[in-house]
């Protein structure tokens, strides 16, 4: 089947999802009120709380959530066949991610734009705040570990990417300083930055940096040397002010995002590639089963718990009208789904010319997961070569796109992890850790570094595939927690929460199921025993989350039953239920 036809079909389904399903959510489930005074108006300060046009806010929201994660998961999951991967992306995006991202935004708006961590404590229980912090801690640990491995593997496989990536750092700082000092419009210098980066890609392509000799001298695998280098870099980068490196690099990244998306879809159209991957793959015995592992392998791109942080952390403070949440939140999820679609097209159609070629890249799960990012890079390179770019150069271009995003994710991941460590240390009264950026920073990188260096057969790449599954599991747990918050709130509003409960229960079943299977798997394989405690801890968090969500929902349903239709409480003489049925969203 032509990849272009698949792309158009999926985008059409996304459009239908937006037109019909998001309208249903807006009117029947979240019951949006265009007259509701949003926090952006109520607390308007021109800084955090700024009423913002929905088109402006969508641009900001989408560029905030789009990154490397929706690329990696689908590139692995095509192992089970492109059809189940794509079905989960389409169904997950329309019926789970849209509900989640849209819902998190609405609930936050109805609670003075509080973030999901605070809302968890308020809506579910005070204990849940600790649960939330623990889940975020492990999520970030795994984010940092998997992206370190992603970058390291790409540097080993595409040594031409080393020069552009490392020269991009001073380049971004220089552009930032130039813009900062001259106060010139940022667009042109940042486009110049992209052009300079592409020149560096050409330079890097002709001057690949391989560190095999250095690694041998150290007695280490080259991949592990890159992992250590990346953690040293991120430890330093996370200490720098955001404006010095992260923000200027973001200018370049934002251009790269749209260029990569444009290259993908234009390349698919021009090359008219046919999908060579099997619709449903006959996987070898002993492979992870499609249930539950497909649904945790593709997290971002189908549903990502991290989006609740974005929706509730920033976007909710800028929503002009409550009804705009549909445009911003739901459409943002569709945008992320489109990135996942691009990834599937790259690894199902772009990466191989024949089924035989494809089978060589996806013979078993470990090889598929270990080579997934490389397959994506090669697929995008093929699309770029359809547009006239030399294939080798195009591969370095695609590798640079992925590494740029992954490196920025690591920068912020380590920074965010440091905050979480400090927050947990504050709760535990470990002031020596809470107040020291260095100690907290070292604590933030210790565990992900250890995980990324975990022994394993490098060629088969089980370390990456295993870590990615744990990352996906934890990300889905975060989504489950956010969906629980949304479900409780919807129940309080006397609305039917079934469309939230279905994805929530589905995600929690898939994650706990996967955790149980992995527990046995890690226990049985000697080299993976180190993951047993991690899996156990995440499993405990999942069970804890299920209990908390069940208690909160049960309590809410009981409270709802105790209310008369006019909002008064059974047995109360004339006491008005002054918080209405919305939680704390009433206004004077």
């Amino acid at each position, binding site marked *: 089947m032509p990849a272009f036809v698949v792309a158009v079909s999926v985008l059409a389904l996304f459009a239908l999802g937006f037109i019909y399903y998001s309208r249903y959510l807006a009117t029947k489930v979240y019951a949006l009120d265009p007259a509701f005074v949003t926090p952006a108006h109520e607390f308007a300060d021109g800084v955090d709380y700024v009423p913002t046009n929905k088109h402006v806010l969508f641009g900001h929201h989408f560029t905030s959530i789009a990154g490397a994660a929706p690329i990696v998961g689908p590139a692995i999951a095509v192992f089970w066949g492109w059809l189940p991967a794509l079905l989960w992306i389409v169904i997950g995006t329309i019926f789970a991610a849209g509900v989640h991202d849209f819902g998190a935004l609405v609930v936050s708006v109805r609670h003075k734009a509080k973030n999901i961590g605070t809302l968890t404590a308020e809506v579910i229980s005070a204990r849940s705040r600790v649960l939330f912090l623990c889940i975020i801690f492990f999520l970030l640990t795994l984010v940092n570990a998997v992206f370190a491995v992603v970058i390291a593997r790409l540097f080993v496989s595409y040594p031409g990417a080393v020069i552009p990536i490392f020269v991009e750092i001073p380049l971004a700082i220089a552009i930032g300083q130039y813009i900062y000092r001259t106060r010139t419009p940022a667009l042109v210098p940042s486009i110049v930055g992209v052009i300079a980066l592409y020149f560096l890609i050409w330079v890097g392509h002709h001057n690949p940096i391989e560190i095999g000799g250095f690694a041998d001298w150290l007695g280490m695998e080259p991949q592990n040397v890159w992992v250590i280098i990346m953690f040293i870099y991120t430890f330093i980068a996370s200490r720098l002010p955001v404006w010095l490196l992260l923000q200027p690099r973001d200018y370049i990244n934002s251009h790269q995002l749209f260029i990569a998306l444009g290259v993908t879809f234009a390349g698919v159209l021009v090359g008219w590639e046919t999908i060579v991957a099997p619709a449903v793959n006959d996987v070898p015995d002993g492979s992870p089963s499609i249930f539950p592992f497909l649904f945790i392998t593709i997290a971002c791109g189908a549903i990502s718990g991290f989006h609740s942080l974005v929706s509730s952390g920033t976007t909710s403070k800028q929503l002009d009208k409550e009804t705009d949440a549909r445009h911003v939140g739901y459409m943002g999820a569709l945008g992320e789904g489109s990135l996942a679609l691009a990834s599937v097209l790259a690894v199902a159609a772009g990466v191989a010319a024949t089924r035989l070629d494809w089978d060589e890249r996806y013979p078993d799960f470990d090889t598929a997961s270990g080579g997934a990012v490389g397959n994506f890079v090669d697929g995008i390179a093929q699309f770029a070569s359809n547009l006239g770019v030399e294939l080798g150069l195009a591969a370095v271009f695609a590798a640079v796109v992925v590494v740029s995003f992954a490196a920025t994710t690591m920068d912020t991941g380590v920074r965010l992890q440091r*905050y979480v460590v400090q927050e947990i240390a504050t709760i535990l009264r470990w002031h020596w850790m809470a107040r020291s950026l260095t100690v907290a920073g070292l604590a933030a990188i210790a565990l992900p570094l250890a995980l990324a260096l975990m022994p394993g057969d490098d060629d088969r790449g089980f370390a990456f595939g295993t870590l990615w599954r744990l990352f996906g599991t934890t990300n889905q747990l975060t989504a489950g927690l956010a969906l629980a918050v949304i479900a409780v709130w919807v129940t309080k509003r006397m609305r039917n929460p079934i469309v939230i409960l279905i994805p929530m229960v589905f995600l929690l079943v898939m994650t706990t199921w996967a955790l149980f299977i992995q527990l046995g798997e890690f226990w049985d394989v000697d080299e993976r025993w180190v993951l047993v405690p991690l899996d156990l801890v995440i499993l405990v968090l999942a069970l804890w989350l299920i209990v908390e969500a069940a208690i909160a929902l049960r309590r809410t349903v009981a409270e709802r039953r105790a209310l008369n239709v006019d909002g008064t409480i059974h047995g109360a003489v004339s006491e008005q239920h002054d918080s209405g049925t919305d939680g704390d969203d009433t206004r004077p």
Partner: protein
Amino acid sequence: MTTATPAEPTVDTRHRVLLIRPWDVSDGVGAGCCSGGSAKGLCVDPQHHPVRGGTRNIERTGWAQFARVYRGLRASLPADVTVEVVDPRNHLYLLPALIRGARRRGARWPAAVRAALRGPGYAAVIVDGQVVSSGRLPSPDEALHQVRAALGVA
């Protein structure tokens, strides 16, 4: 809630004022959803964290001055004149909006594209696609004066 007094109801309702957030005041970091989306999203709960408070203060120097300009414009212009704060990285919105604005003013395509590329300058104030101030953050009074002049009202 900020409410504007409709002091000059004669202003055309289609007018749109864009305030480009100075890039050192903006909050995007481009790390995808795994970053929490922005510098503000970097912290799970900024209000609860003393160390974060210190970091935030460093990162957000100048936010208050920018906010005063926004609040000044919003409070003084009629409610039906749209005042938007836009992040300079938000090309998805800015480029079409600026090109459309320039085209409406009769500019040819190359000139419209040039205007779009030059538009989102540091702390730029853009009225209907026309840059009326750029390169430094104006005082609230200056900004109001420039916007009123561009709108053709006293």
